[in-house]
């Protein structure tokens, strides 16, 4: 199991479109992937969970991956956060 904190830098936070991208990305890995924020932990493969996390710009979420491809998964997800979910702002 590996875990890492990442900051949310895009303007709108984990909104519907960003969440959709994250779900697609996470769905491509076999590992279990969870996001947590302020004691709440959700499945990164469920858009409902991600939306309900209410993660806004400036917050820090913790990503935890567990499974055979956990390393790759973590790197990929970190990258998505860093590139602001490929949004212009």
């Amino acid at each position, binding site marked *: 199991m590996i875990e890492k904190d990442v900051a949310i830098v895009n303007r*709108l*936070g*984990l*909104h*519907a*479109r960003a*969440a*959709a*991208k994250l*779900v*697609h990305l996470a769905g491509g890995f076999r590992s279990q992937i969870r996001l947590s924020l302020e004691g709440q932990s959700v*499945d990164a493969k*469920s*858009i*409902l*969970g991600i*939306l*309900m996390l*209410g*993660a*806004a*710009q400036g917050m820090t979420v913790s990503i935890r991956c567990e499974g055979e491809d956990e390393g790759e998964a973590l790197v990929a997800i970190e990258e998505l956060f860093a590139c602001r979910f490929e949004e*212009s702002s």
Partner: protein
Amino acid sequence: MSGQREQVLTGLGVSYGISIGRAVCVENHLEEVFRLPLPAHSIDAEVARYHEASELTIRELTQVKMGELPGDMEDGLQEEIGGILEAHILLLKDPSLVGRVTARIRGEHVNAEWAVHRTTAELAEQFEAIEDDYLRGRGQDLHDVGTYLLRALQGISHHELSEVEGDIILVADDLPPGEAVRLGRHRVVGFAIGSGGRTSHTTIIARSLKVPAVGGLASVTQLVTDEDPVIVDGGAGTVILHPTAETLEKYARLRQAQDAHDLEQQETRHLPSVTLDGTQISLMANIDLPEEIHDAANYGAQGVGLYRSEFLYIEQSPKLPTEEQHLRTYTLLAREIAPNPVIIRTYDLGGRKLARELMNTREENPVLGLRGIRLTMARREMFRTQIRALFRAAYHHDVRVMLPLVTSVDEVREFRVFAQEIAAELSQEGIAHNPSLKIGIMIEVPCAAIIADLLAREVDFFSVGTNDLLQYSLAVDRNNEHVAHLYQPLHPAILRMLRFILESARQAGIEVGMCGEMAGDPRLVPLLLGLGLRRLSMSPRLVPEVKACVRSLSLPELEQLAVTCGSLATAEEVDGYLDRFLKQTASMTEESPLEVLS
């Protein structure tokens, strides 16, 4: 839920009678979502129905997403819309959402619509706790998904109340009239409504269907769970939740006694409606639904004083009734109650009475807006159908037309020109009709009352609509608890208006009746007759009691009563005087052998 304690809710009894049944809650914020309990054997099929709806929705959204978006749309916007659709598709597929919905169907044995509606609503509510404004607004995505699913489910095969077994007590915060009519058709034996006063449409419909109803039950939908046993006592204005076995038994007995009394009352239908001194008083019926004509006949009404034709429209809205449908209905009414007259009021739509699809207007204050005769003249094509049918029905029967919300002589003249056009059209087409169809008006706005003498020269009859006349004259919304005590039928201003209206009609030699609630109140009947009214129209069920009252009264005394009441300064003084008069009459009748109706 048998373990729960009996609970008595007190509201406003709006339709008489006692009924015992099981609750069905109606939620009407989304398009018709009912919570329908399902038998165990159909649960699997229901879950499958949900999956089917979900897959259908996903396919449709995918098609939309793949399809071309309007060409001039910016790339950024295209991408954004595509992203939102994608998010919605993911939500529909989300195992957590799917799991919650199916668990609800299986756990609560309910229909998929309800499970979807409640689940998405609950989830959307949880978004309210999110701090960030933008993300909190994402609860909307859940609502959207819920709406897609409901639409798909309803297309796949719609649950109807007819699938529920046993007698139904409909529990709702509010019911739009179209819904109430539609639902009333099923085995609905009672209504328990959160909002609604005595003149609300649910009330009117409940009465017409002879179904007991209690309104004004705040948050009733939160207190009741589906299939709870419920007693509705429309006479007492109470609703009893989780009644004990004893209570159930007591109410079953009460209901029997009421039924017996009701039959007894119907027996009086052949007695003439005359005062002790031999004056004929014509007691007519107010009806909403054609079926009620049988009640009118059974309770001894001498004609229909008010047929609220908008219900023809409401029942099948948004489709408009055809000329033949109008004609059939009017002929049916007239035939059943012949040779007595049937007064058809043209659609009284607008105001708070739905018909948004017809009006297509956004009005700040619709009660003072495009409604009644104003709507008739503004939407002539729609009314042409109705007026044609009226001319035709009047050829064989005593059918008359009455216009609502008239405020000026101009409106009457304008309508007459319109009616003449229609009559000419019928002549040209060679269709049998009565060119001298009687045209009357409602006197229900103070300005019409004040120019009653001018209006009387232009029309064939008046009918005083006291419900609106009182509200407008006294500037009181009777459903508003803060001012309801100011709704005073005996206010000197009202008595003066009535006197003037009656006098104007008498001088012009036209007929005048009253079709508001005052007309059916036995306590007020002596005063109304004293003022000179000879025609009263009321809910059919009230006819026997009012007739009994008429038969116990002697006109000369009543005229004196009206004169005295007219000289008093406040509603309270009039009320007190009337009270003393009634007590005196009652003590006299007790000794009198003329009490025929006991």
